[in-house]
């Protein structure tokens, strides 16, 4: 039986369908989750997709944090369930305090929409364990508020603990230390701004590198099942 990846739809989510297709193409069973439903229906992992949840009111991700489903996702993440936040999903994870730091307006104030070259810095997460550390991958970035910021102590801690997961090779938004994605201490929660779900087929994406994240979580889950 293939692993079930729950993909949350918030009002204003855009990439939930693409995330479901990416999960399917990589061999997982996508399960639709709803923001106003506290049940996550027995999924093995959760994907918070990109978009503009609640119209980005107040700050990106600030309102989604208070949704019914996030209470359950937070509790599941604390128990070790793999959680991936992409773009707006990354913003939701930061606003929910599942990841440190914040994502603010791009330094140049422009919406940036182009493939981003990234270096995968660690395989010690649930979502990158099948990717060689140091590998260069390409995934589309498309965001207006993707500049990662945190205080120096937090940034130093992230670096020392190997929790910077993705780094931009051509920083598109002014993110501190070129950070494109990070993980929590346990390595089960990962957030990144570029979109793995838009890099799964040669016809529509700049690469198929996004499949590696789903392959990683499938490997992580089957390893857990063997234990």
């Amino acid at each position, binding site marked *: 039986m293939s692993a079930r990846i729950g993909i949350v739809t918030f009002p204003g989510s855009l990439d939930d369908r693409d995330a479901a297709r990416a999960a399917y193409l990589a061999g997982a069973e996508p399960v639709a989750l709803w923001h106003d439903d506290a049940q996550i229906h027995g999924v093995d992992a959760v994907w918070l997709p990109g978009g503009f949840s609640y119209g980005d009111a*107040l700050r990106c991700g*600030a309102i989604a944090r208070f949704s019914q489903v996030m209470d359950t996702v937070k509790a599941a993440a604390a128990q070790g369930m793999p959680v991936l936040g992409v773009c707006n999903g990354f913003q939701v994870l930061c606003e929910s305090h599942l990841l440190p730091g*914040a994502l*603010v307006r791009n*330094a140049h104030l422009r919406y940036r929409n182009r493939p981003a070259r990234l270096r995968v810095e660690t395989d010690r997460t649930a979502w990158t364990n099948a990717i060689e550390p140091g590998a260069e991958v390409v995934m589309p970035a498309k965001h207006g508020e993707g500049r990662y910021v*945190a205080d120096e102590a937090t940034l130093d801690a992230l670096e020392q603990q190997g929790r910077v997961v993705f780094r931009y090779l051509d920083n598109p938004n002014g993110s501190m230390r070129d950070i494109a994605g990070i993980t929590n201490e346990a390595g089960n929660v990962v957030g990144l701004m570029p979109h793995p779900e838009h890099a799964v087929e040669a016809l529509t994406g700049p690469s198929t590198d996004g499949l590696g994240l789903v392959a990683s979580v499938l490997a992580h889950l089957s390893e857990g099942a063997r234990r």
Partner: protein
Amino acid sequence: MARVVVDVMLKSEILDPQGEAVLGALPRLGVTEVASVRIGKRVEIEFDENAQNVEEQSRVIADQLLANPVIESFAISIEAA
């Protein structure tokens, strides 16, 4: 009815590109003696007639929702009914 105003500002160490853009436009207005512009949010809250602990509740609203303490600071002012 208590009226509360919460001002939310980006912390000084966080770059404010909107403020920078406004600063950059000022010379076009003929204003050349401005050193810095920072842009924030002003939130006006009206509590119910009989609301209790208005200051405490305002602090919760500001700290846990209106401002993200990672990047923003806030100031609360309460205007008596």
